[in-house]
């Protein structure tokens, strides 16, 4: 194998893990400052660089508004007493936090961070592994993190962590179905599972959620309508895609145990949920795992629906291909989009109150599962329009509506409580 590629891969691994980890810190400071501002507070704003412990006379107080807070937090976590209760199952107790962090970091491997860079004649894709089964890989690995949480709950040998673990298990399995089904339309549209290709497709044909341009130009230009049927079809496709987007985003919330779906660790009911018995760096690993999952989730949403690293609006086509600065620019754009989604995650957390567990399950199994299922067929009809013609679509649509009504009826029936005649 080419040594350049090997070295590049090593550098990519180091850089992208580094980026993810620093994003975790940034998430924390964003979360703390943003939530403080929402709640009329200030938040951590005065962490400085403690030069005095190194022997200097004064601490270095930079006007950075407490941006060094994550460093202080991290240091605190490392220096805190690592307390392991005597009654836990030691091996699994130690294993659990690792099992939460590692999958979250592994999933980063297939995300294309930027446009491919050309170094010494080699075109290097800006993803650690340019797999042809990207989303599948992500789902496969991400679902491993539930083992960590469940193990933590069980190994703690304490009732609240156990509840938390069981809840997490049930919740993640439930939402993985909706998660997987919801992107089927997306994958059907792109016709492939390579995330790099998906992004490149969006560069030329407009972002999935924002199909305003294609090779012909913008939606207002005549070039855009060079193939009117394809263009209309593309716009029509927005309906299943938006449904997909909503289901996918919501399911990501549930998968990452974020508010309003943070039932495995809801402190009002379960003390601290699965990490009640954890302290120090072991607790911090859960924390990191959760935030890393949030970063990966955001990155996935951005990649699938919002064009990944592309600047959009046809600008990418004007830039030289493979130049290093273009790659870096694209990485920057990608991270900007991810940051936007992280802020969105935080905003949702401080807006929407926590669900009840049965509501969560109903939403996952009865609403999202069915909606995603119907959505697959809806997208299929739109995509199949050129080949089966108007009549085919009409018949298909009628069938779909009938099936949907039936499905909704069954779903409603399952929601109804048994009649109260016994009383």
């Amino acid at each position, binding site marked *: 194998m080419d040594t350049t590629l090997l070295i590049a891969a090593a550098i990519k691994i180091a850089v992208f893990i580094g980026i993810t980890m620093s994003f975790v810190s940034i998430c924390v400071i964003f979360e703390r400052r*943003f939530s*403080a*501002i*929402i*709640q*009329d*507070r*200030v*938040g951590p704003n005065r962490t400085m660089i403690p030069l005095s412990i190194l022997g200097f006379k004064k601490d270095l107080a930079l006007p950075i508004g407490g941006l060094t807070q994550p460093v202080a937090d991290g240091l605190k976590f490392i220096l805190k007493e690592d307390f392991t209760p005597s009654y836990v199952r030691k091996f699994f107790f130690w294993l659990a936090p690792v099992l939460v962090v590692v999958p979250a970091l592994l999933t980063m491997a297939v995300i294309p961070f930027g446009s491919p860079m050309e170094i010494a004649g080699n075109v290097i894709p800006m993803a650690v592994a340019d797999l042809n089964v990207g989303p599948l890989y992500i789902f496969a690995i991400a679902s491993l993190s539930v083992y960590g949480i469940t193990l933590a709950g069980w190994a703690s040998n304490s009732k609240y962590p156990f509840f938390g673990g069981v809840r997490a298990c049930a919740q993640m399995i439930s939402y993985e179905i909706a998660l997987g089904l919801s992107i089927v339309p997306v994958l059907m549209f792109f016709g492939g599972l390579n995330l790099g290709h998906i992004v490149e497709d969006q560069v030329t044909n407009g972002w999935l959620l924002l199909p305003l341009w294609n090779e012909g130009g913008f939606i207002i230009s005549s070039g855009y309508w060079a193939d009117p049927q394809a263009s209309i079809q593309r716009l029509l496709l927005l309906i299943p895609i938006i449904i997909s987007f*909503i289901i996918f985003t919501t399911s990501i919330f549930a998968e990452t145990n974020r508010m309003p779906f943070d039932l495995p660790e809801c402190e009002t009911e379960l003390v601290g949920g699965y990490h009640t018995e954890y302290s120090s760096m072991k607790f911090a690993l859960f924390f990191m795992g959760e935030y890393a999952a949030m970063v990966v989730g955001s990155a996935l949403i951005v990649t699938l629906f919002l064009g990944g690293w592309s600047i959009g609006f046809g600008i990418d086509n004007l830039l030289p291909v493979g130049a290093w600065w273009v790659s870096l620019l694209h990485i920057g754009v990608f991270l900007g989009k991810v940051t936007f989604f992280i802020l969105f995650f935080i*905003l*949702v957390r*401080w*807006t*929407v109150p926590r669900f009840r567990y049965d509501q969560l399950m109903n939403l996952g199994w009865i609403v999202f599962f069915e909606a995603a299922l119907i959505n697959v067929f809806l997208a299929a009809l739109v995509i199949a329009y050129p080949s089966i013609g108007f009549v085919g679509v009409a018949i298909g649509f009628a069938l779909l509506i009938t099936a949907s009504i039936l499905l909704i009826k069954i779903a409603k029936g399952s929601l109804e409580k048994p009649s109260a005649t016994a009383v």
Partner: protein
Amino acid sequence: MAIIKVERPKLSIGEKIYFGAIFKGMVITLRHAFRSLVGKTTGAKELNSSGVGVTMQYPEQKWDDQLPEYYRGAPALVTDERDRERCVSCQLCEFICPPKAIKITPGEIPSDNEWAKIEKRPLEFDIDMIRCIYCGMCEEVCPEQAIYLRPDYVITGTDRNEMVHDKDRLYEIGGKRVGLVNKWNDLK
């Protein structure tokens, strides 16, 4: 008791989807965040906000002039207008102190002192401010009106010994209090 059955409100399709409500909620949150960021939160002015939310940047900004008269801060000993110790170390405060923060070593006033007739005064008077709960029982129980809770609340130290207020420190915090206390009465 009458039982009133409250019907759940019927939701329209739009309301059932919830997304409108969630979106509205997010707008409200964002608007609030923005107002907070520019220091326009309700009450920011009255509460002397530092610019974000209603929070005061504590060590730099303080609210001392707004402290109420009855504010219960650090307990301290007071002297009268002629700098005489009011405390006679009766140890009632030590007795009543719920967290046992007060420790008094009583002492006799030397006979050559002008006020030897009072006979007794504290030789040592320590209040452990780590223990103190600012309840004000000592002030309430004091028969000589010698101990008061002052508005001082910035009680800090870098070790435990520093947090123990000795007699000198207590008089320094306490200062003077004017007004007749029975024991000085010459006619008595």
